[in-house]
Every structure is written in C-alpha cells, then in structure tokens.
C-alpha cells in the first residue's frame, strides 16, 4: 500500500552552540533518530539536508553533513525554502518515497546561525524582502511582521497584550522542553517593558536566531509497519507560495500561502481544522502565531487575538499550539525548524511528550513558513495511515 510514515525522530539542543560545528549538530540529531528507528545506517536509501546555505561558511553543506553522518555513498541533496527549508526537505523526501524511488529517507535540518558576524547577519537581514522595491528603503524581517501586526490591530482590534500572550505561552512550554534555547517563563509586563525592535514589537515579540539540528527518518508503508516504533503517518501534505513583495499581496492580515497549503493538507488527509489536537506553527513573531490560528482555520479571520487571550491554544483547549515552546522559546535555527516541528508532533502522537503531552493526541499539524510567507508547507500527521 501507499503511504509514508515517520519511523524515527531526533533533536539536538537548540541555542547558542559554540561547542559544535554544523555537521556535529546534525550528527547529534541523526544519531538520536537512528537509534529511535532501530535501523542500521545502511538501511537508509538517501538523505535530504535542510539548511539555508548563505549563513554557513562551508559551501555545499549537504555533502559535508552527509559525509560526517557516514551515509556514503547513498544520494544526498539540499532543499532550501528559507525558514521553511525543513518542511520543504520533508516534502521532497516524501515525494521520493511516494514515487517508489526510495524506501527509507533521512531528513536532516541543520543550521548554525552564530557562525557569521553580527555585521554579516545584519547585511543578510537587509535583503529578506524584495530588494528592488522594498529593501532599498531599509526593511527588516521584524518590520514586515510589525506592519502585518499594525494592519491586524487596525482591522480587528488585536492588542499588543494579546500578542505578548503568545510569547508568554510559548515561554511557559519552552521552559519544560529540554531542547529549547530559552527555558524560562516570562510575563506580559516583562515583554511590554522590553527594548523596541519595530513598533509595535519589542524583543519579546521576536524569535531568536539559534544553532541547532533535527532529524526525521521517513519510510514507505511496508517498511514503516515492520519498524521498531509506532509509525506516525504523513496523511496531508500541503504546499503553496505567496508573492515575495508585500506590495502584491491581496491582504496583509494573514499569509495566503498558509491558507492555501492548509486547505490542501486538510483535503488530502480528509480532516477538518477542528480535528487537529496539537499543532506546531511558525511563530517567528507573535503576530505570526495569531495569523496562523486564522490561516489554519482554528478560529475565524480576526479572532486570533481573542483565541490566545482565552487560552484556547494551551493544553486542555481545543488545539494545543507550540507546546514545545515554538520558535519563540525553542529558538529558530532556520534549516532545522521545520524538521523540529515534525519531531515534536510525532512525539506527541506517540504519547512521548512527557509533562507537555496533549492527552490522547491522534491528529497533529505542522505549519512552516519561509521568508514573510513566500513559502508555506502544512503537514497533517496521524496515528492512523488514513482517516475514517
């Protein structure tokens, strides 16, 4: 039968990691995933590396990582879609298994964001937008999301307190995640009093650059059933893109790519938003998580602020969102982030999330965004290969 499942997961500690090179971070995650799967290295047919190459001094990063993991001579390639590289890599691995070309594929997301100097990173940061019409006026990542936030506040009455409530939640759960960069609780007052970045944002509205790696091993249905661990099935795989330039978007209160990718993923999986019990969403900024509630259909457009204010995305609410700390508290090693999301949801569906476990989680979702919404990938994951 057809179908692709996650059969092994591994995660390196996210954060400032001056102790390790990028391939050593990748090894940390891969070794854990391999042990989890119970496979020998020789059983892996191919590897897909997720990373954003311009942040590394090493070029051809896939080759270096592959060699260090000891996966020669199997094929390897890099998949890049900015901050959505992780989910894009999972998609290419899924495609290769669905096509019958490979049976078992390792996806390794890895990134060292602290390798370049602050000056070099600020230079790259100045070119995240459309350079012809926008970067020439000094735009930044936070500035784009700050402008989404301003528009959201204007149209729907969303408040700064509601946005900071997202950061408070994610730090609450991040404090309980041993892999997270920031393992401490914060308060609304602390977020409000913090240094400004781009109004209405303070530093607590923004996720932090981090080093890190995560790995999932995917397998065909036959191989997954013969595996050591209970398979977690990729039942809905949605992907879409939006214009690079905010000057060409139909609206700035959400990400059209996310709405489209979510609709595709739900249709493929045969589920509705209300069926999702646990989700990891791309909270690169607090408003991004509020827009994600709406883009994914967890609430109606404009109601995302009330959704967090009423604590609905906490464990015990209708859908638990970013209960691993999200990008905000876990840190954002961009190539690793999407893979980390799938690791977390697989653990939740296997019932292995410890104190952060969502009770009887059977259906989960990941939402991984590249750039300011140019790319979006949404996965529905399930304990069962098909939904009845």
């Amino acid at each position, binding site marked *: 039968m057809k179908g692709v499942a996650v059969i092994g997961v591994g995660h390196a500690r996210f954060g400032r990691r001056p102790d390790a090179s990028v391939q050593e971070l990748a090894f940390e995650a891969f070794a854990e995933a391999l042990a989890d799967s119970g496979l020998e290295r020789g059983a892996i047919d191919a590897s897909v590396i997720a990373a954003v190459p311009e942040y590394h001094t090493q070029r051809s990063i896939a080759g270096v990582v592959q060699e260090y993991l000891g996966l020669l001579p199997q094929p390897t390639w890099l998949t890049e879609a900015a901050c959505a590289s992780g989910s894009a890599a999972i998609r290419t691995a899924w495609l290769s298994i669905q096509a019958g070309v490979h049976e078992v594929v390792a996806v390794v997301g890895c990134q060292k964001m602290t390798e370049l100097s602050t*000056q070099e990173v*600020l*230079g790259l*940061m*100045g*070119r995240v937008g459309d*350079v*012809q*019409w*926008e*970067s*020439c*006026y*000094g*735009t*930044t990542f*936070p*500035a784009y999301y*700050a*402008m*989404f936030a*301003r*528009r959201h506040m*204007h149209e729907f009455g969303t408040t700064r307190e509601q946005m900071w409530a997202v950061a408070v939640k994610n730090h609450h759960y991040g404090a309980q995640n041993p892999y997270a960069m920031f393992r401490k609780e914060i308060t609304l007052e602390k977020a409000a009093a913090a*240094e*400004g*970045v*781009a*109004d*209405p944002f303070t530093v607590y509205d923004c996720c932090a650059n981090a080093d890190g790696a995560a790995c999932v091993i995917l397998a065909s249905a036959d191989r997954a059933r013969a595996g050591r661990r209970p398979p977690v099935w990729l039942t809905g795989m949605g992907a879409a893109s939006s214009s690079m*330039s*905010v*000057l*060409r978007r139909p609206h*700035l209160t959400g990400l059209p790519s996310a709405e489209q990718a979510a609709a595709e993923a739900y249709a493929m999986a045969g589920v509705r938003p209300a069926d999702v019990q646990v989700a990891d969403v791309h909270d690169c900024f607090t408003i991004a998580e509020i827009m994600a509630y709406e883009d994914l259909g967890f609430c109606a457009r404009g109601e995302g602020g009330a959704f967090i204010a009423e604590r609905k995305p906490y464990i015990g609410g209708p859908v638990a969102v970013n209960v691993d700390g999200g990008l905000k508290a876990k840190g954002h090693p961009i190539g690793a982030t999407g893979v980390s999301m799938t690791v977390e949801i697989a653990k939740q569906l296997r019932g292995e999330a410890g104190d952060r476990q969502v009770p009887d989680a059977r259906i989960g979702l990941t939402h991984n965004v590249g750039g300011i919404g140019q790319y979006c990938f949404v996965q529905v994951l399930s304990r069962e290969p098909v939904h009845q």
Partner: protein
Amino acid sequence: MFKWYGRKSFTPATRIGAFADHLRDGRIMASRCLGCGAQAFPPRADCDVCMHRAFEFVEISGRGHLHTHTRIEAAPTGFEAWAPYRIGVVDLEEGGRILAWFGEGISDDAIAIGMPVQLVPRILDEMEDIHVVCSIEPPGTTWQKHEAGAHAGVSSPGEHRPTPEEPIR
C-alpha cells in the same frame, strides 16, 4: 539608472531602469503593457497578465491611502545612521502599492492607517551618489517637475521595446 532608486540600491540593472530617471524629473511612473494594456505598480517590464514583453511608462498621481506602517529601531547594514526611521505601505489611487519613508510633513503622532497621503519624488542631496526616492507626504503637497532628460547626464527615458534579439509573444 535604477541604481539611483532608494536609499541603498541592490538592483543596478533592470529593464525598467528609466523609472528612476522619471522620478528624478518629478514623475512617478507605472508600467502599461503594450499587448493587453494591463497597468502595474511597481512597474514591470514583462506582463504577468498576457506575457507580452513590451511596455510603456504612464505617469500616476501618487495619491493614495496608508495601508500600514512601522518604525524600525534595529536597522540593517547601511541604514544604521538613520535609525529609527518610519516606513509605510501605501495603496495607490491608480492601483498597486508602494513602500517608502514618511517625509517631514507628517509627524509620528499624526500617522493613522487609512489616512490619505501624497507620494512625492525626492532627490536626496545629503548623499554622495544620486539617490531618488518617493516620500510619503500630506495630501496636497506639490513639487516641481522637469522635462524628460532636463537634468544633465540623464539619459532620455522613453518607452522600452525589446530589441530584435528578444522574443516577442
């Protein structure tokens, strides 16, 4: 010369390069497709409606309404000396949007989403190289316009037609 456009240029070469020449002459230009007539702002050389590759510039009023805005505290490389600075996205009356800085005519506390604004071409004379930008100003702001190419050293910006080597659909 598109390298004139913006406070820092990342795009030296483009087929709509004369946009910056027009801006220097005091004119804000959209593009109009010579195949289907579709108008675009920001201007584009190649039509995304009908795939035609020839276009002409058409002047727009620069009037519009503020869509959203932010004040950047943490600036990228090359912009540190100006920080903090406020940027806005404006919905243009003739269609399309533009991103630009606010001029001195609009104070921070007067800024409100939805307010009517006027985009005004500005030549930045505090900088060593030529830089031309659009500035978000109050409605009714006026400025001087020049004949095309009246500035010394400015190439004559006409409509752009593909050269014979370029395929035309």
